């Protein structure tokens, strides 16, 4: 655990993770912030690899980088008039103080606690053991997680889908933005009712 390559991997991955997280804070463009968030997720996945947790590292890449970050990019793209700037509210100073306190407390607890005996070598065949325990002792939480994901899927669709009878809303917002002119035939035109009725 003390060879040069491992040190290099740990410190560079830590620097990437924390540096990218800081760039999420300071970058002014929200799209850039998501890209740095993806970099931070990849750094965390690399740290999982240094911890010999290969399966969790792959899960991290697949779900966080492949799904969650892309979902966030979609959400930002679909809220065009909400502003792309990554500005702060008036809670900036209290948040900064709380952040300092949390980091200090976490560092202190992490360094000062006696964590007892440590395992020297990583466990082999981790994915196999995790998979077996998922269908043996953790089968109930596994099924509950499946129900939760289904509920979230249905809930997200029910929330985000546009009501077909309320198509005028989308048309009105496009008109307001000047993306279409009132007499121009458009795919976004309402199926029925007068444009501009919603909102």
């Amino acid at each position: 655990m003390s060879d040069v390559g491992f040190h290099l991997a740990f410190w560079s991955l830590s620097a990437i993770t924390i540096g990218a997280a800081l760039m999420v804070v300071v970058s002014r463009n929200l799209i850039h912030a998501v890209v740095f968030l993806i970099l931070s997720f990849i750094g965390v996945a690399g740290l999982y690899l240094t911890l010999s947790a290969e399966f969790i590292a792959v899960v991290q890449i697949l779900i966080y980088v492949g799904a969650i970050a892309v979902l966030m990019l979609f959400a930002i793209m679909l809220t065009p008039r909400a502003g792309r700037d990554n500005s702060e509210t008036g809670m900036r100073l209290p948040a900064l103080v709380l952040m300092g306190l949390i980091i200090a407390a976490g560092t202190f607890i992490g360094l000062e606690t006696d964590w007892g005996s440590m395992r020297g070598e990583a466990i082999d065949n981790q994915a196999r053991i995790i998979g077996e325990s998922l269908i043996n002792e953790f089968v109930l939480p596994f099924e509950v997680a499946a129900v939760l994901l289904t509920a979230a899927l249905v809930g997200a669709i029910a929330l985000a889908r546009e009501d077909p009878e309320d198509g005028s809303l989308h048309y009105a917002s496009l008109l307001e933005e000047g993306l279409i002119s009132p007499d121009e035939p458009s795919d976004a035109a309402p199926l029925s009712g007068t444009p501009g009725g919603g909102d």
Partner: protein
Amino acid sequence: MVIGLEEYLVVAAILFGIGLYIALSKRNAIAVLMGVELMLNSVNLTLVAFSRFSDTDVALSTQVFVMFIVATAAAEVAVGLALAMVVYRNRHTVSVDDIDLLKW
């Protein structure tokens, strides 16, 4: 110097602090969700570090726990972003300063 549990815990603490700052201070609701995701990541990092260095025979149960956290985070971000879309559609903003209907 040997890289052990403590170093990972410090990295996770810093990551959690940054995520907390983002979640508390950003104006855009989607940026707030990004901070929440960073915090969840740091907690996962802590759990995996304990799983690696814990000297018990149930160490890998921690990684199962991490997987459930990831599944819950995915569900949370899907519903959260759908909520942001609904708020945007109705109020044309996702700024947490302007969404103050429930504020007294």
